[in-house]
């Protein structure tokens, strides 16, 4: 068991180091995220009623799109230099290795995204309840996006046409978007959002259990 | 007269018949393309064989 934890840590550290060495992708997509958010108030005007109703949902959509941009980095470099084949050949379960990589993606992209969107929320003068709801839904929702995305990346990496990944991931990520925005809207109107948060947590547990398995299966299929 | 009633569909003729028309077109295309594909495959394979 401790051996497995060890190998998980090794892969996690390796991916984190690689991500910090080659920051451009993450930083660019975070910039994309910020720019998209600043574009929305410009096009809607900044009347406070509109801002409180529209901005949270729009932050979520921007987060979804920005995540789509970075998903490919989970496996791209490994796929290009062939180290993904080494991983599939190793004597450790591929599911474990893959989950370490997904976790690394969430640390390098999900956490900065959450922090930035909270800052943007303050900048756009959202109410405290909305910022709190935004924080909770993002912290539950972004891992789901990373997990679901990893499966789709494993299926599509290296194929011609990069749009395919987005075509596959966007319909599947719709429940996350809906539950999150409904939760935020409930919070905005001072209602309980506990039901939606439970639902998001349920989906998170489901994807944590199944997505690494599916990713490993997809990688094996791709490399067979 | 009865036939006229039938075709006017109680005033909803445009909706009912367009819905049935679309269904007919889609189903027809499905089966037509399948059969054409089968013929083409058999023809091609025969040509290869010769």
């Amino acid at each position: 068991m401790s051996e497995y934890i060890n190998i998980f840590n090794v892969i996690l550290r390796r991916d984190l180091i690689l991500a910090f060495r080659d920051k451009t992708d993450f930083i660019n997509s975070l910039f994309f995220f910020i720019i998209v958010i600043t574009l929305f108030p410009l096009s809607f005007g900044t009347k406070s009623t509109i801002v409180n109703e529209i901005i949270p949902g729009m932050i979520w959509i921007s987060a979804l799109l920005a995540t789509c941009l970075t998903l490919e980095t989970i496996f791209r470099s490994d796929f290009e230099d062939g180290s993904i084949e080494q991983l599939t050949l190793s004597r450790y379960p591929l599911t474990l290795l893959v989950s370490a990589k997904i976790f690394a993606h969430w640390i390098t992209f999900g956490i900065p995204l959450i922090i930035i969107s909270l800052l943007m929320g303050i900048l756009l003068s959202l109410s405290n309840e909305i910022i709190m709801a935004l924080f909770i839904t993002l912290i539950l929702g972004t891992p789901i996006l990373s997990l679901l995305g990893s499966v789709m990346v494993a299926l599509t990496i290296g194929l011609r046409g990069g749009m395919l990944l987005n075509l596959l991931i966007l319909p599947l990520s719709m429940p996350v978007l809906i539950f999150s925005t409904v939760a935020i809207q409930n919070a905005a109107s001072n209602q309980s959002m506990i039901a939606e948060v439970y639902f998001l947590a349920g989906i998170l547990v489901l994807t944590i259990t199944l997505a690494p398995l599916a990713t490993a299966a997809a990688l094996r299929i791709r490399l067979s | 007269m009865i036939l006229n009633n039938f075709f006017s569909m109680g005033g909803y003729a445009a909706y009912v018949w367009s819905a049935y028309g679309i269904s007919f077109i889609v189903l027809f295309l499905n089966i037509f393309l399948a059969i054409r594909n089968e013929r083409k495959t058999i023809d091609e394979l025969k040509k290869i064989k010769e």
Partner: protein
Amino acid sequence: MYKWIHQFGSPKYFYDISLCLSKWVTIVCIVCFISGLYGGLVLAPADYQQGDSFRIIYVHVPAAWMSLFIYIVLAASGAISLIWHIKISDIIARVSAPIGASYTFLALSTGAIWGKPMWGTYWVWDARLTSELILLFLYLGYMALQSAFDDKRIAARAGAVLALIGIINIPIIHYSVEWWSTLHQGPTITKLDKPSIHFTMLIPLILMVIAFKTFYITTVLIKTRSEILKYECNSSWVKKILGN
């Protein structure tokens, strides 16, 4: 059981069975279509609320049911091809996807046409409509993924993973959408009054459902046969068939 599956999965066996099956299924399909259409368009009385426009139900509901059913077929044959590596199930999944997409399109478009006189608008962001639209996107994604691979075997298995994830997601999508739209719209939409559907309206509906299902089976069998011939073009039994 395993033996039976593998026997059924052998291309030649499937080809012979499907030829014989095809004939009967086509007959059932034609009979059900004609009697269902006659019953639905002529015999069934007009609905007291919706007038004659309710007759769209006889193409709309079977198409909607089939759109879900075919997605289940995709996922089930995907699971079979992942577990037992049976070529026939690969083929069935691949040829079913466009048919499923077309049925989904049919359900959406006939629904929109029906919505205009009933709700006054072609499209509402209602739970059912939205999740059906997402289902169409899932089909399109599946087909796009399939066509991106050159190797058909890998394409089939990658598609199988996608279809299985999609089938887990369909209930989640459905409930999320349902929740979302009931929270934001009043229950203004009058759905068909299901409990009191009359006998003379129900029988044609059942007939049409059978007709759509057998139509799907017929189409799949034809497409599968031509794919089998392509795959097995070097084996002796195919050469014998082509010789005749």
